[in-house]
């Protein structure tokens, strides 16, 4: 059981890392892009927009964490 937990934790740390928002947004963005293209829209802008939004959001979260409480 312990080995299984360690195995799961290794893959979580390896893929998700210390900012889970990135993995969630990327998987969602790729999924939505795939659905949109199957519905007939060449949804190429979705991924770049998701990337820009994710970087900005995670930077904002890091600033908030680093700021001392007022």
């Amino acid at each position, binding site marked *: 059981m312990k080995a299984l937990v360690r195995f799961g934790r290794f893959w979580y740390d390896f893929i998700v890392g210390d900012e889970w928002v990135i993995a969630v947004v990327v998987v969602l963005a790729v999924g939505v*892009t*795939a659905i949109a293209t199957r519905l007939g829209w060449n949804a190429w802008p979705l991924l770049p927009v998701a*990337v*820009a939004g994710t*970087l900005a959001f995670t*930077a904002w979260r890091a600033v908030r964490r680093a700021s001392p409480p007022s």
Partner: protein
Amino acid sequence: MHAFVLVLAAFAASAVEMVEALTIVLAVGVTRGWRSAITGVGVALAALALIIAALGPALAQLPIDALRVVVGTLLLIFGLQWLRKAILRAGGLKALHDEDAIYAAEVARLRAAGTRTAHDWYAFTVAFKGVFLEGLEVAFIVVTFGGSHGETGLAALGAAVALVAVLVAGLVVHAPLSRVPENSLKFGVGVMLTAFGIFWSGEGAGVEWPGGDIALLALIAFVVAVAGGLVAVLRRRRVASSDKVVLA
């Protein structure tokens, strides 16, 4: 003349794919160390050789779009994690050498545990995925170009010449790259992985990029602009908050 055009077409198409793989391997090797990156390249080449030997012309039936989605999504996640840390370091929100300290601690831990070598799975996986996917695309090019003209040998010759040319280019570029400051290099790696990740996962999801492969250059420029803008904002914010502290 026809043979020359076929070799040239296979050379050009293969070179584009190989340069993409080389970019990733160079980036990972210079920043994370060559040992694991080269191991990743070796295992990827062995896996490719096995697949090509087993499938041969049936290669064209492999679900390349599904592979692109998986590889692209993972590259995009890795790239964004790397880029986020580089942005925070450049913006002054994170220590410049934190990952070195973590890596050194991991090496020390493995040595203490009696492990003979510290293997960097991150470098291995990224190098493996880059070479495996691009290598598979080169194999597709050879099979489709060569197959459609009934001259797979000539297409393979074009790909082999491209491999030599790209390897020589890699050896030439490798030395100057190692003199670039560490965080700038990590920033560059994050940009490349993110841009390649967007491109491949998009292609796998069925997107047709405007301008085809040229879109990759536009994506690199876009990611540089976004990341550079965020660094500028973070630096300005830091200066403003330190001014406030001085005034108080």
